[in-house]
């Protein structure tokens, strides 16, 4: 423990000189990077618009009031579509993520040198492309509509579910697998009786968690034409009917809060 002598008294210090200097250097570099990045963004910003923004925001808020409540009756079908996109997309994702997770987990993959990297690449590319980008591509290919939304959510979620699932598979208790192997079980039987029961709670938890995230994401897919409540949001913003926009925002808020509550309850019940 480093001590400093000040006026003949020993004073405790948290760190010795070298680590203190190292921390200062890191902090200095971080501040420098931050200032540099801020400078670059600020060059591309028209500050007049920014200083004007509070007035604009007040103006927008005043035009959103009061919400046009009778618009609500036309929103039930888009809300239903949004939930259907999230649910069916999640379903599609977990069906496809299940085998990929087994191929990617270090302890169950058939080949560490060939198949595991492929499975990991599928996981990474599915994860790094946002569902909105997937939707953009799918709308170009199969046309606008709910189906493109379902596929977009599905493709995006495969990587997420498979990643969490293969981490769960790698953390299983090997002694149970060994016990099943000792009874003379073959490969599929080991999988079915030794591994699957151990990861089933994690699997259910991951699915519900992803469903909750997908509800949130499917509300915006309509911006690129892939169905759901985003279509109405986009249309209302383009026609500057702000009283409808506020209703849509409230509906999205309600849907997201309800789905979060459901997902928290279900996960609480599982774990």
């Amino acid at each position, binding site marked *: 423990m480093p001590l400093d002598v000040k006026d003949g008294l020993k004073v405790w210090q948290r760190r010795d000189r070298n680590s203190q200097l190292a921390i200062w250097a890191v902090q200095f570099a971080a501040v420098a990077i931050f200032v540099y990045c801020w400078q670059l963004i600020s060059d*591309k910003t028209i500050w007049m618009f920014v200083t004007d923004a509070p007035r604009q925001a007040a103006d927008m808020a005043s035009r959103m009031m009061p919400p046009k409540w009778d618009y609500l009756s036309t929103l039930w079908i888009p809300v239903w579509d949004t939930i259907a996109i999230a649910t069916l997309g999640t379903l599609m994702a977990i069906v496809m993520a299940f085998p990929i997770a087994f191929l990617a987990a270090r302890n169950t993959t058939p080949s560490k040198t060939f198949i595991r990297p492929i499975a990991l690449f599928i996981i990474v590319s599915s994860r*790094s492309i946002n569902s909105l*980008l997937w939707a953009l591509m799918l709308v170009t290919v199969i046309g606008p509509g709910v189906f493109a939304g379902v596929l977009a959510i599905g493709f995006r979620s495969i990587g997420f579910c498979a990643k969490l699932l293969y981490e769960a598979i790698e953390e299983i208790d090997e002694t149970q697998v060994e016990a099943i192997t000792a009874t003379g079980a073959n490969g599929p039987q080991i999988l079915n009786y030794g591994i699957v029961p151990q990861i089933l709670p994690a699997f259910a938890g991951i699915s519900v968690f992803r469903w909750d995230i997908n509800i949130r994401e499917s509300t915006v897919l309509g911006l690129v034409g892939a169905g759901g409540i985003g279509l109405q949001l986009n249309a209302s913003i383009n026609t500057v009917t702000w009283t409808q926009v506020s209703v849509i925002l409230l509906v999205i808020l309600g849907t997201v809060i309800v789905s979060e509550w459901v997902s928290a309850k279900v996960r609480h019940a599982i774990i």
Partner: protein
Amino acid sequence: MSHPTDSLTGRRWKRPPFIASPLLRWGLAVGAAIYLAVAFGTMEVNWSRVADGLPRAQRFLASFFPPDFTSRAEDIFDGILESLWMTVISTVVGIAISIPVGLGAARNLAPRPVYLFSRAVLAVSRTFPEIILALFAVKLFGFGPFAGFLALSIGTIGFYGKLLAEDIEDMDPVQAEAVKATGSSWFQWLNYAVQPQVMPRMIGLGMYRFDINFRESAVVGIVGGGGIGATLLTSFDRYEFDSSAAILLIIIGIVMVVEYSSGYIRRWVQ
């Protein structure tokens, strides 16, 4: 699967079901089946359009290869850099703001009114997806990276503040009490009792949020929030799919690099 012991015991072993209560089990199964049937029924799939899309998908994928990194290299480079700045700034600013909000939202730290207020801030900034925030930021602040930066920062506050508050609520009260017993002031107490307990996890989560922000910065451009998303959208609109493929590959590459380095830093910190 009959077994020699079956005849001795008179019954067969069956795997215990995942959901113990049979009523709940069958209820959930029937409910799920009905919901799926209705959901599929109401989903209007234009199958002829989808069938049209299949050869189109083939051409689409074919035009992705080989990815063209060169002909739009300058635009792509600018877009990627803009995304990276936006990610850095919004992560830093978001985390800086989320620290006081997170402290206020921890039940064992803050008085009740502050707690409720901070929780409300977190709930509102968490519910809306970044794209919707970006949409409104673009309306208010004009096109460009500033709008994207604001949207990502607000998203970061909701995410990071909530996790920070939960982590503080889970901390070991014994250490906190020991530091308090030395007669420390509130800030000293925060610095020596609370911060060391939550720091390792929070650094990891900060790296994770950086990763998320980069991925999101690729889409805020679609609604005009600057970054690589704008370049990507333009390349789609011009049917220059080989450039789009190049952009997507670069995004995947950067996400992989960030993910691996964040995993490395997290191991180093813990």
